[in-house]
């Protein structure tokens, strides 16, 4: 049975008509698939059929150790959106609920090869001169989290120093404890700088610059 409803599939087809360049969706699962691994893979494969500009590659978390390492994937299901290079855009857990929108818009951004950000934000992001790892913890029902995820992914596209993960945390309960997640969205920058709630673009960039301030 198809995972995506016909109505959504039609909407996506229309959106994907505007895809400009090739997008690789790189998915990590394993032989004995967890329920959400399977749901994620099947959904991505369905997306792959909606545009010739999209290819879906499925890797095994255990067997394809080399690729797992190259994409620095540490848990599954994992999904990377890749254009002419790997921008560091990752989804851990199933991109369901509103995060499905983050996935579709991420694909569109990657196909354009540039994120939709204002010049002011791009200027600030150009100041980032060291590795930054952003994790946005979300729940599948959170209606506002996608705005944080979208920005984190756009930032990853804009700066080669930034990598950004969406983490659907109810699938990884140990991370709830590790990062003390008590509300959604929760943003963690470089492991130890936390931002609860939904920041504006400017607040988000400022927090990144603060996190790497010498």
């Amino acid at each position, binding site marked *: 049975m198809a995972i995506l409803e016909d109505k*959504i599939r039609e909407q996506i087809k229309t959106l994907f008509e505007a895809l400009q360049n090739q997008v690789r969706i790189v998915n990590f699962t394993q032989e004995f698939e967890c329920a959400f691994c399977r749901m994620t893979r099947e959904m991505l494969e369905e997306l792959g059929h909606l545009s010739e500009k999209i290819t879906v590659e499925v890797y095994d978390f255990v067997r394809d150790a080399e690729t797992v390492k190259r994409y620095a994937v540490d848990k599954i299901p994992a999904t990377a959106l890749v254009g002419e290079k790997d921008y560091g855009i990752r989804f851990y857990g199933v991109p*369901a609920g*509103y995060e499905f929108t983050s996935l579709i818009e991420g694909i569109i951004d990657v196909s354009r090869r540039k994120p939709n950000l204002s010049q002011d934000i791009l200027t600030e992001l150009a100041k980032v001169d060291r590795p930054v790892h952003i994790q946005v913890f979300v729940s599948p029902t959170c209606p506002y989290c996608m*705005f944080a995820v979208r920005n984190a992914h756009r930032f990853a596209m804009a700066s080669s120093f930034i990598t950004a993960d969406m983490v659907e945390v109810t699938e990884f309960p140990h991370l*709830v404890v590790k990062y003390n997640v*008590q509300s959604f969205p929760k943003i963690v920058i470089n492991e130890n700088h936390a931002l609860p709630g939904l920041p504006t673009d400017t607040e988000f960039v400022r927090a990144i610059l603060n996190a790497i301030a010498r």
Partner: protein
Amino acid sequence: MHVPGFILDTVSSEHSYPLDQNVLYDILILGGGPAAMSAAIYAARKMLNIAFVTVDFGGQIRETSEVENYLGFQSINAHDLIERFQQHVKSFRLPIGVGARVEAVFRNDGLFTAVMEDGLRYTAKTVIYATGARHRQLAVPGEKELIGRGVTYCSICDAPLYKDRKVMVVGGGNSAFTAALDLSRGNATIILVNNARGWQADAILQRQIRDYKKIEFLDLHEVVRIEGGDRVEGVTVRGRVTGEEKTVAVDGVFIEIGLLPNSDPVKNLVELNERGEVVVDCLCRTNIPGFFAAGDVTTIPHKQIIVAAGEGAKAALSAHDYLVQTSRL
């Protein structure tokens, strides 16, 4: 885990008909909830030159899962309802600025200018102000400090975190009961605390939660303090009759005590009441000619989707009448 399907909400972050700073619009609609969307449909059908600016589409409806009291739908998934509203608005191909927060609205020579957070400015002959409301805070010690550390205002966002845990819900109306229902799905132990006597939620919501075994009802109690260092550890409440204080150990506090109108951007422009709501008459007019308001941001008492939608329609028709009567078209 409950997976809410795959939701496509691309309009909320991007739209292809951007606004033009050099155009003088007939009507500028501010907000993206049911009031604003209904206003847009009525204004668009009058073939007026309108523009629409909002942070997101759907407003507070985004925070609920099912809507069971909108005419024509016995029960509809909240996102599907937003989607229908959105498609209806989009069919008119209006200039829409999404993701844009209005910081202030000014009036100059009878024209209105809305200044956005990012400095952009849009000008119009009339404004329909429908920015809705946000969650009210308790204003007790510990609350601000523990926001995001166990103190929460969005049950649909955070309820999944409190599976099998103990939680206090503060409030006695529909939102508090909805939060309790969200939490009951994760088998949480719930203490519902209301500072008023009894419970104000719709009877049907009250009935839905009454059978849940792990809920305790505590009315006539007020929250004195939220306890905890790095995270919520408990809440101290005081009995309003006995004056007795007790501290209850909980992992989280869901605060659902009503709304604060999003009227800050216009507080220096129009008359507000003591609660900060924009004062409107039955035609959605404010004390400033040409400035109309609708929905939860106004003094209209019943904060509901159908009421907001009706008010939005009225505001659009009133704005049209104003433009005609003052020969501004």
